[in-house]
């Protein structure tokens, strides 16, 4: 506080008019909140370890040692124990995280891009608005699990079915968020000014509407990421997603379920990983929303 008073009292430097002092950026504001900073660091750790899984993993992905089957955590050389086939849980976990994150990225990217396109179209072309948004409402009324079941029946169970199902579940949510944000932007004078310069609709959306909706999109994406991981893991848990020997957190939890009473760590470790990832992404999403909200800026 005293620093602020001093700042105010200090003589205005000559350059002040030339370069007004920069307001701390979004990232700086994010890092000021301890929870947000921790969430950000953990997110980075999760992403980096997933990306570098093949190099970080202590054993080869296909390596197994049946003698070590269901070894408890803390066993010599197996800090997290081994699963029912005697595979190192650390390796499985790293590869599982990698697969789960890839699935979530693919689903959020696909669903998010399609949803954003629908949302922009609905906000920009008011005639199409009602029709587009009713289609989104219909999609919203389908449970993603049901859709996943249907897709698994068509394509056979696998990651493709999970990605498509979660992507489809993301489209209407993203469309609503983007439409709402874009409607607010469309009412701004600079949109009319842009039209008066003869810019095409697509360029107005891309150059003027989209950048002003980015903060909403960003926050939603982060939050949705956690939800998609949960949903994808649930589908994998039901056996619709990743098939053995692919490591995927939901599928790993599902496999471990059979041994819940003699080797609980096989199910608990991937479940905890899901919990941690979802929690971290949600915390980051909340913190981003605060950091990007102009009304909360100090």
């Amino acid at each position, binding site marked *: 506080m005293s620093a602020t008073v001093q700042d105010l009292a200090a003589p205005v430097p000559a350059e002040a008019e030339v370069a*007004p002092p920069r307001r701390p950026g979004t990232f700086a504001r994010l890092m000021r909140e301890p929870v947000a900073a921790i969430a950000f660091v953990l997110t980075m750790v999760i992403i980096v370890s997933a990306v570098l899984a093949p190099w970080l993993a202590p054993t080869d992905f296909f390596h197994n040692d049946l003698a070590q089957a269901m070894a408890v955590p803390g066993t010599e050389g197996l800090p997290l124990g081994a699963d029912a086939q005697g595979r190192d849980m650390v390796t499985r976990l790293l590869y599982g995280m990698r697969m789960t994150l890839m699935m979530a990225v693919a689903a959020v990217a696909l669903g998010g891009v399609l949803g954003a396109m629908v949302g922009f179209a609905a906000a920009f072309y*008011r*005639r199409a608005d009602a029709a587009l948004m009713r289609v989104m409402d219909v999609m919203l009324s389908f449970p993603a699990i049901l859709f996943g079941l249907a897709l698994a029946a068509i394509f056979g169970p696998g990651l493709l079915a999970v990605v498509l199902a979660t992507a489809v579940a993301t489209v209407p949510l993203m469309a609503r968020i983007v439409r709402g944000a874009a409607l607010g932007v469309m009412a*701004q*004078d*600079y949109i*009319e*000014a*842009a*039209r*008066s*310069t*003869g*810019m*095409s609709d697509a*360029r107005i959306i891309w*150059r*003027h509407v989209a*950048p*002003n909706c980015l903060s909403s999109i960003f926050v939603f994406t982060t939050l949705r990421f956690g939800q998609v991981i949960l949903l994808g893991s649930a589908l994998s848990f039901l056996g619709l997603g990743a098939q053995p020997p692919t490591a995927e957190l939901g599928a790993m939890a599902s496999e471990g379920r059979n041994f819940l009473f003699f080797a609980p760590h096989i199910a608990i470790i991937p479940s905890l990983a899901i919990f941690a990832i979802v929690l971290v992404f949600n915390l980051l999403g909340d913190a981003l929303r605060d950091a990007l909200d102009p009304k909360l800026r100090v």
Partner: protein
Amino acid sequence: MTDALLRIEDLRTVFRSSSGDIAVVDGVTLDVPRGKTLGIVGESGCGKSMLSLSIMRLVPQPGRIAQGRVMLEERDLAALSSAEMRAVRGSEIAMIFQEPMTSLNPVHSIGDQITEAMRAHDPKASDAELQERAIEALRRVRIPSPERRFAEYPHQLSGGMRQRVMIAMALSCKPRLLIADEPTTALDVTVQAQILDLLRELQQETGMSVILITHDLGVVAEMVDEVAVMYAGRVVERGTAKDIFEDPQHPYTIGLLGSIPRIEEDRERLLSIDGSVPPPFAFPKGCRFNPRCPFAIRACTETDPPLRELSPGHRAACIRAPVELAVDIAA
């Protein structure tokens, strides 16, 4: 007035509503002379902004042009396809708006926004060339150190500077007609004068036509060559600035002029026109001004007078003109 750049013929812009179409611009016929400034004057709600948006074909939903032609030389803008119209916007007709504070996108630098506007009409130009032209455009609107301003964001500029940027953007493609919709209303008085001076200089440099929409008769007196007075979606008086200020013929014009304070007169109260512009769904029968008109006679409630030529180039839509109305009201 034969040499018109833009000729609006019997233009009618309507908004769809549950009780039928409501006309906000109703049968306007108007010439915009080449190389001159036409002022469009009127109270809020008289349809002047809608007229300018109709020219640009930017009337917001659910409005549309129901009838009439907007002839830019030989072409009818009202009949162009939307792609053809887009090519006209910015390059042949440009517009500046009332609110410089919100008419620039806060997320792009002003240089980006100007080059973007130019790129819309010149997709082949290189970035370097566009940047050079944008800096030149900023220099033309007398923005100091344009090279540095080019990279700045709208929040770093004052209102007057932003309006200059808007003007630079509007003029970047050398339009033949500039529509300025209350360009100085949001600015304080000293900045207003600077912006008006700038507009006048730029007009003389480029020889473009300007439509200046305003409710400020002081601005009109200072800036324009010709005036159209609008009331309730119609043009009620049209003439040169001299005609309108020295010999106003429509009671509405007289009322507007009476409501400006004059430094040489020692009057206790300003004249005012009672009431306000009726909303478009409640226009009265006969002359639309008759309920507020101090000179209204019975005939005024029965016939809707067309614009009538009173002297060459000076027309008014009043059945009582030409009486020496101005004399009555000054007394």
